[in-house]
């Protein structure tokens, strides 16, 4: 009976993947959708990677970290610095020449992406050693500060990052499969990690750090591990972000970016991977759909005064407030989306129709 259901579920997953793959290929080959749709979906895939990695740290290990934008910046700049074609370097670094040690180095995109993730993880370990001794809100402030420091360093390290001018002409990826492929691999890795003994140790720390330590779990080691893995995937997300936009500059990694990810994991449910994936797509697409709030609106000849640039973020913040007031557990809480749950929903719908 249980085995039968398991087979059934595997078939359903395969079917779901085939539908997904066909849709993505159609999009990719430009049979359906336009450039704008493709771009938004790619962005959603990238944001999914970063928010899921943030959920590993915040939702599963119980560390309130707000450094995600900083780790993304490290990944993004690594890809930017090393993948820009050598011949266009001089025209990018036209104010201050690029550091000669970096000027001659070009690495292929996959290696640069991996390097970006590893550098982010390395920085996370260095930052984590002093900072992870802090708890809850103190940790949040420290990591937020770190993320700002990264941004300011990148603004001023002109020979490496080209300062506030940013780096342009980053080669773009020809296919959506790059973004979605890395997303699937990253999410799968984190799901497997959470269901491993290490993942259980992370959850134990979230539930009760004193008891976890009394059960022989080295708190410090596991916190640093979770923090570094989270940073690694944020770095990967940042690298993809750079190659999607084709340009990076420090302003993109303002701390408000971290709040977007915070919104995604709160909306999806702290401690739910499937919830975070769904929420990442809702929020990313929502941010685009809500863009009409940013444009002046004229109804029946009357120009509505509050519709102007930035109003979108007001709506968004209001949504966040409603969310924490009324749906504190988000879409899924600590549960994962399962076929049983989907069946229940459909069952309820059917009963409702009758």
């Amino acid at each position: 009976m249980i085995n039968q259901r398991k087979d059934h579920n595997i078939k359903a997953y395969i079917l779901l993947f085939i539908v997904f793959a066909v849709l993505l290929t159609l999009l990719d080959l430009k049979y359906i959708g336009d450039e704008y749709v493709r771009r938004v979906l790619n962005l959603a895939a990238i944001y999914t990677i970063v928010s899921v990695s943030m959920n590993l740290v915040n939702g599963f290990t119980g560390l309130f970290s707000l450094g995600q934008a900083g780790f993304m910046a490290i990944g993004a700049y690594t890809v930017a610095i090393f993948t820009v074609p050598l011949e266009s370097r001089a025209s990018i670094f036209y104010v201050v020449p690029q550091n000669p040690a970096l000027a001659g180095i070009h690495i292929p995109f996959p290696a640069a992406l991996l390097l970006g993730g590893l550098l982010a993880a390395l920085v996370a370990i260095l930052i984590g050693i002093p900072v992870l001794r802090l708890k809850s809100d103190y940790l949040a402030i420290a990591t937020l500060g770190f993320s700002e420091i990264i941004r300011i360093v990148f603004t001023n390290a002109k020979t490496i990052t080209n300062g506030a001018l940013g780096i342009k002409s980053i080669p773009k990826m020809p296919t959506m499969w790059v973004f979605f492929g890395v997303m699937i691999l990253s999410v799968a890795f984190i799901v497997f990690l959470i269901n491993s003994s290490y993942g259980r140790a992370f959850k134990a720390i979230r539930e009760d750090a004193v008891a976890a330590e009394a059960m022989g779990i080295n708190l410090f080691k596991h916190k640093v591990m979770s923090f570094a893995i989270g940073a690694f995937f944020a770095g990967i997300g940042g690298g993809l972000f750079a190659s999607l936009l084709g340009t990076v500059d420090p302003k993109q990694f303002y701390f408000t970016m971290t709040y977007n990810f915070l919104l995604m994991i709160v909306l999806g449910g702290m401690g739910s991977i499937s919830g975070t994936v769904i929420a990442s797509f809702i929020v990313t697409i929502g941010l685009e759909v809500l863009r009409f709030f940013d444009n002046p609106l004229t109804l029946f000849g009357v120009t509505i005064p509050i519709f102007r640039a930035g109003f979108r973020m007001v709506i968004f913040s209001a949504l966040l407030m409603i969310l924490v007031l009324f749906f504190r557990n988000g879409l899924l809480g600590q549960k994962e989306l399962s076929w049983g749950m989907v069946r229940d929903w459909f069952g309820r719908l059917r009963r409702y129709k009758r």
Partner: protein
Amino acid sequence: MSVLKADNIVMQFGGVTAVNDLNIEVEKGKIVALIGPNGAGKTTAFNVITGVYQPTKGSVYFNGEKITGLSPDKITNKGIARTFQNIRLFKNLTVLDNILIANHLHVKSNFLSYTTRMPWSRKEEKSMRSKSEMLLEKLGLLSLKNEIAHSLPYGEQRKLEIARALATDAKLLLLDEPAAGMNPSETMQLSGFIHTIRDEFELTIFMIEHHMDLVMEISDKIYVLDFGQLIAQGTADEVKNNKRVIEAYLGVEEDA
């Protein structure tokens, strides 16, 4: 040789001396109790032994090895596990997960091979699971393995906390008021339970308890603490008739 030895432990918090010059010896295979009125410093003594506090003076030895200065997780790795006065389970996780987490300290594969489900890690996970289920079966908790820990009845939660401590493969078990909040019949069951696990897992047990019936019935040796000072030690009968113990519990008459 004694399994646990506390040597002239002094624990001060600012100007307050919570434990003063405490000497304790727990012998292998014995059930030893630490009793005393509220605020006597019993839990502080436990916290010093398990590394939560670093003592102001003195040392703790486990099987002859000095363990003072080690962090709580290192001490658990040496083979001392504890329970807490107010239950500290991983509340939102299942009973089985609670036990599996206590097995984590024995994990040999690193996180990469565990996450990528390498064959040796799969094997490790499998043996960890069967070991945990066997432990739950021995303690009569197997039917509850998929329940969320906080949904269990109070008595079962206490039992699960002891099971979790056992899952670390500890040789010395420290129980902080295992019978707190239990009614007399549950307390009697607990007494049987403690005896059973002592024999089954070849444990040494050191416990803090307030239920005198339980303490007198199962302890091989009793230490009495009052205002951080050790005021008596010995068998149940010796302690029961000790004048200072009676005074500590009942108070001294002014004109006596």
